[in-house]
Structures are given as structure tokens and as C-alpha cells.
């Protein structure tokens, strides 16, 4: 029994198998990159959106929120927040602007970031851009 399946056979499966699947993965990645422009809303990726993404990152919003379902699970999903707020940019800006510095007693709190008007516009443009990515209908409903 032992000798039917030898160590060198196991080794060959390892090298051959992993090589094959690395190549397959690269091929699928190549195909995906080609298909992305139809799905990833890159036609709306403006300077403002890019600046908004930078602000998103440099304030670590992902440390509390999910974006398209990835991140932290402490606060609402923001990939579709633009739609949840009725596509009302001002409402989102007002929400972010109005966070109390000391938080809300007893409630999970979001920091006051003291953004300028321009920064708020950039963030909202980024959230709008994110909400228009083709996500195969995720999330299941508006609550995220």
C-alpha cells in the first residue's frame, strides 16, 4: 500500500499541480482585467473620485465600515449609502459634518473629521462612484 503512492509522486503532483493552477489563475486575471471596464464604473473615475478615495483611506473609514462588504462590521455598509440616502449628496455631507466631537452617549459613534466643503464633496463623489460599480446585485437590499 505504502509503495503504490510514493514520495516522488506526491512531489510531482505538488509541482505540476501548483504550476498549472498558477498559470490558470494568471489567465483568469488577465481576462478579468479585460472585462473590468464594462463593470467597474471607471468611466466615472474623476479626479474628484480619486481624491475622495484618498480621503477614505487616510481617515481609515474601512476600520469601522464595510465597502462592498469588505472592511469592519461595526458600522453600516457604505458601498450603497449613496442610494440609501436617496441619492442626496447633501444629506450624506450633512451626516458626516454633524458628528458630535464627543460622540453620542451609549451609542456607537463616528468621529468628527472636520472636513472642508471640498473634501466632503470628494468623499461623496467617491461614495457615488462606488455605488455604481456592477456588483452582481449585492447587497441584497438597501440596508446593505
Amino acid at each position, binding site marked *: 500500500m505504502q509503495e503504490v503512492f510514493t514520495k516522488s509522486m*506526491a512531489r510531482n503532483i505538488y509541482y505540476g499541480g501548483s504550476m498549472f493552477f498558477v498559470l490558470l489563475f494568471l489567465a483568469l486575471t488577465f481576462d*478579468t482585467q479585460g472585462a473590468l471596464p464594462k463593470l467597474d464604473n471607471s468611466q466615472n473615475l474623476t479626479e474628484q473620485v480619486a481624491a475622495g478615495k484618498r480621503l477614505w483611506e487616510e481617515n481609515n473609514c474601512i476600520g469601522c465600515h464595510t465597502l462592498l462588504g469588505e472592511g469592519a462590521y461595526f458600522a453600516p455598509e457604505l458601498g450603497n449609502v449613496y442610494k440609501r440616502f436617496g441619492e442626496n449628496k447633501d444629506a450624506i455631507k450633512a451626516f458626516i459634518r454633524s458628528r458630535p466631537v464627543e460622540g*453620542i452617549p451609549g451609542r456607537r459613534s463616528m468621529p468628527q473629521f472636520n472636513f472642508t466643503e471640498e473634501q466632503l464633496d470628494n468623499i461623496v463623489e467617491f461614495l457615488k462612484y462606488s455605488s455604481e460599480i*456592477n456588483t452582481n446585485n449585492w447587497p441584497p437590499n438597501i440596508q446593505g
Partner: protein
Amino acid sequence: MQYQSQSVAKLYFLAAMGLFAGQILFGIILGLQYVMGDFLFPEIPFNVARMVHTNLLIVWLLFGFMGASYYLVPEESGRELYSPKLAVLMFWVFLVAGALTILGYLFVPYSGLAQMTGNGILPTMGREFLEQPTITKLGIVVVALAFLYNVGMTVLTGRKTVVTIVLMTGLVGLAVFFLFSFYNPDNLVKDKYFWWWVVHLWVEGVWELILASILAFVLIKTTGVDREVIEKWLYIIIAMTLITGIIGTGHHYYWIGTPSYWQWWGSIFSALEPIPFFMLTLFAFNTINKRKREHPNKAAVLWAMGTAVMAFLGAGVWGFLHTLSPVNYYTHGSQITAAHGHMAFYGAYVMVVLTIMSYAIPLMRGQQAKSNRMQVMEMWSFWLMTVSMVFITLFLTGAGILQVYLQRYSDAPQAFMVVQEKISLFYWMREAAGLVFLVGVVLFILSFFLPQEEKNMQAQPA
């Protein structure tokens, strides 16, 4: 311990233990913030505590992997470490860089840290697990290169065993995939696509090679079972890991703007990912059943068995639970994800690092094993940590099922914050289990540092 230079591992293990305790402390803070939203706000907001928790985890696991390598590579290679001095130097570089980064998170607002460290020049910050300032990431690359050079030279100029070859492959892969953390395009979909090349291809790819080789080493040493048999297992386990895990990356490409064919590729291949974890369990139990000696370090053998079982449960079973795309459609980014993340990380990587520490630290002190009393204490720590992690996972799974139902599945979906309020009982229970986990961590550390009292079990050589 056969070679003097193996003892540099002690530094690495010591740092790992300290950072582990810190990680859990911040886990407890996070757990409390889940139910008392204003706890420590605005001094330590949730996102800051979370960064500290997850980054400490990654850093101490890396310390553990490096310590494990410095310990086992000389012994396997049959020679002293290429440069013990370099290993000590890199230890301090890594520790100082890590400490400064954590202090930066805690004492500088994150956006200020981004400004100070010139994130604008090469923006890499602000993505989950990759929050470190760009210069810290560069520091990690330098440390990794020096480390790979050091162990690589030892392997290349010494006896080459399957254990060291697999370990080296895993470590090189770890470093190579980390390079994708420097790729951060404005296009969110591409950003996310390649972010997973770090995160998924680490934990469900190259880290499994590291896991399997460390476990194989400890099993060879503690059971005396023939290398040929163990090496065959090792090859076939890592073959299955890469065959399933690479395309399995697709289970993260369902809902992020990538083509829908990933639902097929991802579901099918990731559904097979439990196989290598199951084989790891069979491997460990088989080897221990066929042992040719009774190793005096009972605690280390317990940790090795525990790793095999808990890695299968956390990664295999809890991973499978939400990996098929029709299920993941509902569970994506919920407490189910958190439940799986905890048990998988604990069962696979935390436990394997504790295994090698448990095995190697007594040997580096010139004993075969700790005194019986201290081993009993260590076994208590094993059960406290493992059982409380099972409960943390179960409570989060309960929270997750309710969350998914109330927020995403029922006919009248409710808002996120409303649902969180309703399931807070589960978060309280998770917090209680977390406190038990902390007791386990303290006992683990104490079992190495309390006076041993009885005479040493046996003296060298190992």
C-alpha cells in the same frame, strides 16, 4: 537544541508573546465598544483599536514564523545559522518599527500619520490589514529580505530537507505577495482585486506551507516517526493547498465588480479548500498514533494536535459554511465573516506558533520539557484559549445568523444599527468568552516564566 545559533529564536518568541497579550487586550476593548458604543471615545475610536488588534496579530505571527525558522532551519540543515548577528539586528529593527507604528496609531490621528509619513508620495495606507504607513511597509520588506537571505543561505549551504524547502517556499511566497500591498490604484475594483493577493494568497496559500512545515518538524521531533512518511504527507497536503487555494481566491470576487464567472470558479475551488486542512488533521493524528517514543513535552504534542483540529474547524468547516456564492450573497461582510476569521486565524496560525514555542523554548533553556506543574498550567491555558475561542465563534455565528436574517433576508429588512442593537446579547457573551481567553493567554505566558520548582525533566541533549 543542537546548534548554539538556534537560540536567537528566543528573542523572537519573547516578542511574540508580549505582542500576543497586547493583541488580546485590544480585542477586549473592541468587544466592549461593540456593546458600549462610547467606550474610550473619542480617545481610542473603534477603528484605531481594530488596527492595533489586527496589526499586532499579523506582527506577532510574523515574529513567530521567523522564530520558528531560526530555530528549525539550523537543526534541519545540520549547521549553524548563516548569521546570528543579522538575525539579532533584524529583530530589533522589526520590533522598533512595529512599536513605533502601533504608537503612531494610538497617539497620532490616522490622517496626521498619513501626512507625517508622506502617504501622498506612494499611497498604500487605509486598507484593511494594510494600514501601516508606507515607510513601515518598506521596513517590513527590508526585514523580510534580510531574514530570507539569512535562512536561505543556511538552507542552501546545508542539508536540504523537505521541511526546509517547503518552509522556504512559504516564506518567499509571503514576501512576494506582500509586494502587492504597494499597488493601490484609484480604481476601487482593481484595488480590491489585488488586495486579496496579499490577504487570501497569504492565509489560504503560502502561509499554509509554513504551517504544514512547522507542524511536520514538531511531529518528526516529538514522535520519532520516519521522515519518508512525513515528507510524503507534507507534499500532498501542500499540493492540495495550492491546487484548491489559488483559484479559490475567486470566493472574494463575487460582489466587488468582477465578472460573474468568478461565482463558479470561486465556489467550486474554495469548496475544495477544506481538503488540505482535513488531511492535515489526519496527518497529525496518524503520526502521533504511530509514535515511536513518548516525548516528555506533553503540552507541545497537545498544541500540535489542537492545531490540526482547530485549523480544520475554523478554516475548513467555518470557511465552507459561507464560501458558496448563493450563501455568501447573504453572509458577505457580516458577523459570520468575523466568526470564521477568528477561529481560522486562531486554529491555524496562532496555534502553530504556540506549538513551536511550546516545543522549542524549553529546549533552548537546556531542558527537554518544562516541569510537570508548568506543563499542567500550559495545558490549562490550551483548554481555556481553545474552548473560549470556540464560544467566541459560536456567539458570533449566532449574531451573524440573526443579522443576516433581520437585515438582509426577511421581508421587512431593518437598518444596520437597529439590528446591531437587537443582537447585542451575543456580543456581551462574546466579550465574556474573550475575558476567559485573556486568562488563557496569561497562564500560557506564566507557564514559561514562573519558577519551575521541580527538578528539570531531563537534561540535554535533545
